[in-house]
């Protein structure tokens, strides 16, 4: 039978933490990427390392959206749910669209597991799944049978059942098998029995699809028409890490990362730790304060200094960031936002640290804020944050979130040679003449254009100077308690940051220039807004959208842009933080569309909200 052609499909793999669902999803994604689909993924881990097997708390899921068109989100609801046990079915069934397909490992639906999942009756036997097309596959048994001859112990045999599921889905969606088989060989190199078991299970799953009369036919999702070039599938944290490394290369500076592990930012520390040969040094500090402190020390030493963390870490770093504002040294603070307040929902996404990024320090301490908008865009956002920090000698906050961090998408690799250099010069010369005509160095004598002060690093003969957090005299940098000087310095620091508006791209309106409704977004809502706006427009409404990558300062034309529209909607994964800024800066009645659930907006939610605006 010929496979049926689909435009796109959203598959959700769900199972116990021990079932290897992240790996399964990842492999399916890779194969699809290789095959040429556009795609977007969303892993959904449990908060516990390993919650008790079979419990709801232990469910780990991975959603992947593959498409023959360009897409921008992992999809609202799944077309297919693969449920490896009752807990997975119970916790994730609501992610499956009505009418969707549910593929179930029926072996797992025995009494103890049902009980652990809190099912009072077996959902395979009552009407729980009435709205769905259900395929019950005894995956555990079939896997065990398939590997029986290999001499694998039953326990280990069972472990391969995720490869059975992967094989089955690979058949169903006509995914190429080679990338997965190759990967198994590499990954488990040296463990021949494991390789054999996994390969056999995979093939068994594939064969099962083909031969069992269960399935009418397979599907294909054609490759997407993507721009030509080399692609890789990348998640936000890796892209961000590589962006930091790239900024080091582009500026010719060594990169120093001082950080402390915290979900969902730790992977950046891990990734950067792997690349000393690319001029990266990392320190796992004793806490977040030492993380940012050590970075500031390295910045004083002339390095491209970075600290990576999440909300609780930024809350601790405030005082040191304030020092960086006062010292006017370049420093990038990366905040991978997660659910708050306090420990909140550490493994879930949220975008509720914008106000803290603006104001989380005492005194008047303005700082630029850059926000990433998609997993691969994290690469460029990181470079941009570094560029601003280095050029203006200022700490910069780079905001990403848990969804971008772990979500992935295909990325057309940029031509490295075409990435613009970050020109940066350490001061080496005197820049002033004292009353007696002798040359001297003034650490706070500014570039008239950028208002940046010179960056003279230790080791430079003659330019010895002292910096500190007490208010400094303009120019000399000497301690000054003079009232007028303080006012002046506060103003200069503000002007320096405000002036960056001249150096960033203007806000670009996409969609209908004559629309009634403008949707202003920032951060990871980019994908959902893109889908929602295009859907609303395709229904004949006029809508425009602006997506901000710079949140402080705003693009210079933003006020003007906002003034062109009657209604301004601001979807945010918080209680309305950007809308608060737009309202106070531009006195426009920006309306926040808020969601604080630890999960991203779906396009359909946004679509509904935008359409609502037309009914108001």
């Amino acid at each position, binding site marked *: 039978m010929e496979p049926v052609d689909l435009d796109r499909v959203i598959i959700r793999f769900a199972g116990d933490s021990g079932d290897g669902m992240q790996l399964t999803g990842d492999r399916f994604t890779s194969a699809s990427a290789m095959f040429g689909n556009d795609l977007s993924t969303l892993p959904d881990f449990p908060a516990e390392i390993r919650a008790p097997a079979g419990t709801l708390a232990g469910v780990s899921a991975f959603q992947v959206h593959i498409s023959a068109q360009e897409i921008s989100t992992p999809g609202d609801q799944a077309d297919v749910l693969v449920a490896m046990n009752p807990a997975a079915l119970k916790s994730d069934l609501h992610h499956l669209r009505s009418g969707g397909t549910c593929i179930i490992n029926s072996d797992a639906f025995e009494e103890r597991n049902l009980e652990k999942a809190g099912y009072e009756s077996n959902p395979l036997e009552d009407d729980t799944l009435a709205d769905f097309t259900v395929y019950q596959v005894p995956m555990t048994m079939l896997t065990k049978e398939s590997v029986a001859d290999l001499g694998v112990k039953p326990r280990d045999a069972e472990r391969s059942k995720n490869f059975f599921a992967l094989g089955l889905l690979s058949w169903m969606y006509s995914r190429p098998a080679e990338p997965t088989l190759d990967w198994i060989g590499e990954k488990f190199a040296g463990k021949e029995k494991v390789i054999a078991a996994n390969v056999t299970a995979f093939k068994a799953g594939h064969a099962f699809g083909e031969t069992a009369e269960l399935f009418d036919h397979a599907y294909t999702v054609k490759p997407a028409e993507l721009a030509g070039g080399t692609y890789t599938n990348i998640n936000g944290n890796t892209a961000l890490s590589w962006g930091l490394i790239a900024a080091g290369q582009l500026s010719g500076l060594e990169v120093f990362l001082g950080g402390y592990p915290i979900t969902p930012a730790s992977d950046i520390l891990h990734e950067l730790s792997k690349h000393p*040969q690319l001029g990266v040094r990392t320190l796992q500090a004793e806490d977040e304060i030492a993380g940012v402190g050590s970075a500031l020390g390295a910045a004083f030493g002339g390095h491209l200094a970075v600290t990576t963390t999440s909300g609780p870490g930024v809350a601790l770093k405030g005082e040191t960031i304030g020092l960086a504002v006062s010292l006017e040294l370049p420093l990038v603070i990366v905040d991978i936002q997660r659910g708050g307040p306090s420990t909140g929902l550490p493994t879930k996404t949220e975008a509720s640290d914008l106000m803290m990024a603006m104001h989380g320090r005492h005194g008047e301490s303005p700082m630029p804020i850059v926000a990433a908008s998609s997993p691969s865009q994290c690469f460029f956002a990181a470079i941009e944050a570094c560029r601003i920090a280095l050029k203006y000698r200022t700490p910069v906050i780079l905001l990403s979130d848990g969804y971008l961090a772990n979500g992935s998408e295909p990325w057309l690799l940029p031509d490295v040679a075409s990435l613009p250099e970050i020109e940066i010069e350490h001061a080496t010369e005197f820049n002033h003449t004292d009353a007696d005509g002798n040359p001297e160095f003034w650490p706070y004598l500014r570039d008239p254009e950028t208002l940046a002060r010179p960056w003279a690093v230790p080791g430079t003969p003659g330019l010895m100077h002292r910096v500190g957090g007490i208010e400094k005299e303009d120019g000399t940098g000497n301690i000054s308690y003079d009232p007028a000087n303080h006012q002046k310095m506060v103003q200069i620091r503000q002007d320096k940051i405000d002036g960056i508006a001249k150096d960033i791209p203007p806000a670009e309106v996409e969609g209908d220039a004559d629309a009634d409704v403008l949707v202003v977004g920032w951060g990871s809502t980019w994908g959902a807004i893109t889908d929602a706006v295009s859907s609303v427009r395709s229904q004949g409404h006029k809508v425009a959208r602006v997506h901000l990558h710079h949140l402080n300062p705003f693009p210079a034309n933003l006020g003007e842009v906002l003034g062109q529209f009657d209604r301004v909607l601001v979807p945010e994964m918080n209680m309305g933080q950007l809308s608060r800024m737009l309202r106070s800066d531009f006195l426009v009645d920006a309306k926040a569309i808020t969601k604080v659930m630890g999960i991203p907006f779906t396009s359909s939610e946004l679509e509904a909200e935008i359409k609502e605006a037309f009914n108001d």
Partner: protein
Amino acid sequence: MTDTAPAPETTRKDWSTDQEVRWCPGCGDYGILAAVQMMLPDLGVRRENTVFISGIGCAARFPYYMNTYGMHSIHGRAPAIATGLALARPDLDVWVIGGDGDFLSIGGNHLIHALRRNVNLNLLLFNNQIYGLTKGQYSPTSEVGKITKSTPFGSVDQPFNPVSLALGAEASFVARTHDMDRKHMQATFARAHAHPGAALVEIYQNCNVFNDGAFETITKKANRDDMMINLTHGEPIVFGSEGSERGVAMKNDGSLEIVDATGGTDGLLVHDEARTDPGLAFALSRLAAGPSEPTPVGVFRAIERPVYMPVTGSSSGHNDLASLLSSGATWEVE
């Protein structure tokens, strides 16, 4: 990055800035500043390769007076900031300055971790057993019963012994000196400088405004010989106003005691700053309960162990950006 040619000859003046020194008249900090400024010319190091980093406090004003690179940072964080600088720039001499509040109260964690890691830092702890800059609250080194603005009925908590704490934190170099003896300070600072890794020097420093005379019992000229036990590596530990009429000996149970040594040095403890096991240095740190009994000064411990450095190169991994970007699974679209 730095010039490694022999340093030009310098004098104290070269190491001094034109900034007015703003400690109270009579403050012990003056003597420490002088000692540092007078020692540095002897080390044959360059000013531009030297950095002083401090926190906040009276002591922490120090960098402003040093004609080197410097940073007056925030309260307690100097060891952390200096750690970053030392790791980024191993070519520099990094000195860290702080008071007992700065290093041991708010900054205690950064200090013990810098010591544990053995970051290449020279850490000078100005211990005046009081908060000077905030006008006289007790500190984690203040003696029990201390009456201050924040302890009007007398403090009840046991102070840290900075030397013991540092040894418990795996410090590879720990020494003690005091603000009344410039020569001793200079020698001790020079030793700290020569030590690879983290070197902590506790300096008994008089705050004549808020805690005057805290160390007088032992530092006063007249008392000094009787009350200070100079530690000299490889030598029996003796002291006394007549030179060596008293000494330190070890009891059967391993604890130390002060004994009569008029009969000679037999049976006295021979100081071994290089002993791998920190037990001896620790025992010496407990000899005096506070600066009112005969107190050891000098180098308690100086051992070599690996200096902490982040990995700066490896044979594995990607050497250029392009190969990094394509290090995952890639595919081509025509």
